[in-house]
């Protein structure tokens, strides 16, 4: 059975301190408990969390949904988004089962990235590594007005913006992420086997604006 790897890249810089980081923690918890009630996700989804502030670190290695444990998440420091993308690329190389003639490997990983500010390190270096790997759907979320959607557009064409980084909007975003991971009926005009682009996602909640 192919696994569906899901990587969450979460900004834990100092500006996320307080309500936003608490909302992110709650969001992760809600995401996991929602997915555990979803038979599709429970059968196939594996979750990893990479946080980034002054450094990037994988706080949860790729883990089967039922075995997932909430990691410690604290907000402080700057926004090493470039390093986070480099780390993601490394983890994809080691954690994803590749398809060979003999073995069906994993689905292409889904990536959900959330940040509230501009990267403070060399984004281009991380971006280059990231672009060399194959991903399924990649969604970048700009939480609040401090994040630059144009920066995020360099990572993926699927960029959503939350007007504010308060608990209600962040919660809505995670709810939407969980709905995106479950699959449903395919529309007549769709052409991909993997979940790849925004048109296949469930409708975003009213709090999320899709940047086009």
């Amino acid at each position, binding site marked *: *059975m*192919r696994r569906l790897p899901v990587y969450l890249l979460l900004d834990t810089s100092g500006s996320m301190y307080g309500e936003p980081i608490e909302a992110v923690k709650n969001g992760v918890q809600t995401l996991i408990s929602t997915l*555990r*009630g979803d*038979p*599709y996700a*429970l*059968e196939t989804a594996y979750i990893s969390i990479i946080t980034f502030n002054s450094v990037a670190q994988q706080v949860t290695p790729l883990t089967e949904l*039922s075995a997932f444990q909430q990691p410690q998440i604290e907000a402080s420091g700057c926004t090493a988004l470039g390093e986070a993308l480099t780390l993601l690329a490394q983890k994809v190389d080691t954690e994803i089962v590749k*398809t*060979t*003639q*003999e*073995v*069906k*490997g*994993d*689905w*292409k990983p889904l990536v959900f990235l959330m940040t509230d500010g501009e990267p403070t390190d060399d984004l281009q270096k991380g971006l280059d590594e990231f672009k060399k790997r*194959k991903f*399924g759907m990649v969604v970048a979320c700009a939480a609040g007005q401090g994040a630059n959607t144009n920066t995020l557009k360099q990572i993926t064409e699927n960029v959503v913006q939350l007007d504010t980084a308060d608990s209600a909007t962040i919660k809505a975003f995670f709810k939407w992420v969980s*709905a995106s991971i479950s*699959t*449903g*009926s*395919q*529309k*007549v*005009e*769709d*052409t*991909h*086997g*993997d979940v*790849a682009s925004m048109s296949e996602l*469930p*409708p975003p909640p009213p709090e999320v604006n899709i940047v086009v």
Partner: protein
Amino acid sequence: MANKITLTANDGSIVEFYDEIKAQGGVKDVYFSPDKTYVVAFYRKPINANDRERITNIVGIYRQRIFDTPEGNYWKNLFAWPTKMVEWNGKTGIIMPFYDKKFFFSSGPFKGKEKEGKWFASAKLRNKFLPADQKGNWLTNLHMCIKIARAVRRLHAAGLAHSDLSYKNILVDPITGSACIIDDDSLVVPGKFPPEVIGTPDFIAPEVIETKHLALDDKQRKLPSIYTDRHALAVLIYMYLLNRHPLRGGKVNDVNDSGRDEELSMGAKALFIENPTDKSNRVKAQQLSPAELPQGDPAKMPYTICGPYLKKLFDRAFVEGLHDPSKRPSAAEWEDALVKTTDLVQPCQNPNCEAKWFVFDNTTKPKCPFCGQPYHGQLPILNFYYAPSHGKFISENYRLMVYDKQTLYKWHANNLVSPSERTSEADKKPVGDFHFFNNQWILINRNLPDIMDVTEKKPIAIGEYVPLTEGRQILLDKGQGGRLIVVQLVNN
């Protein structure tokens, strides 16, 4: 508390609901009525004239043809069919009955959630997450499949294709052996209302996947139809009875791209994992996780454990008809084969066996394929014969396995009767029953006026019994279509 909204529906009746979204589907938002007997589902986007006409027909003439009939009440249990249409804030909504409470988990880790079929069709979910008291047994799962086949047969008889049959759109309850088809608003009428979705992964027919890159008006493009419903139905039945997907084997069709590999494996290169001649898509059991075993390994649980009637239909669905839609069995054929298969089951003698029932394997040393328990004791098999012309009986290749307190029905006694939504209350009562009494198997006549022991040449009065001994012939019904039983005994 959210505001209560009151509207007038298309049929002039009053519809009430609270202004609070309780659930979201792919295209609709769902609101609850105050008395929780129905829900109102609004399409998020404005619907076009064609959709409006489709929905008007679904709540109108199509609904009346199925539900405003003597069997209407029976079908209400098998469909959550839209009954009315409303307009609100420029949006169109449909009214549907609330799902019966047996279709929600009543306890355990998933309490309150809908019983989506996936829970019961996946080996990993069954073995690792599903509480034992929610699984039902192999016989109730067979009953569940009968309900699904019957409901699909009714849709197809009305010229309607569901177009998105999947375990997401059918709620099931293995405990009572029930099923209910939901999301009936996207029905396809060939040539009149085209489909909006191509289906749900796992259930989309190969020809639909193979041609989905073509333009909608291309003549080669295949869209959901009654034939693709037949593929989805076969996959559903295979998955509920065997807990694995019939096409997900070990063959890799594209090394570089998992999406492309999926497309080929379910589309152009789709191949049955138990294809008798082409073995290239066999499951590689060593690559499965322990939670997927033993069901995931066809070498341990081949599809032949479903018995001869279903084996034949699986061959037609996944070997001959996989890439030739016209050869796929109809829903009516599935219903018939499933019903007849319930006559072949035996209770497993292992009290801890999870399946609890298994299909007699036609050997002299029968054993349960699920737990391996051999059957001990005397096992009577009743072979059915009928007379197309007077007095000359021929075999029907149809059998009834006997077990203690097993019951005999009118549809066993006469081959012109079959159990269906039309079965009358009187015909639902057993006409005979079987017991192990004084070291022999007997059939007690409860309501068979002209049953006769042909071997002894004497009638069996109501309340009297006839022993089931090797070779004994019993005529159940003297009328047209009446069946003759020839007894076979297995001794272990």
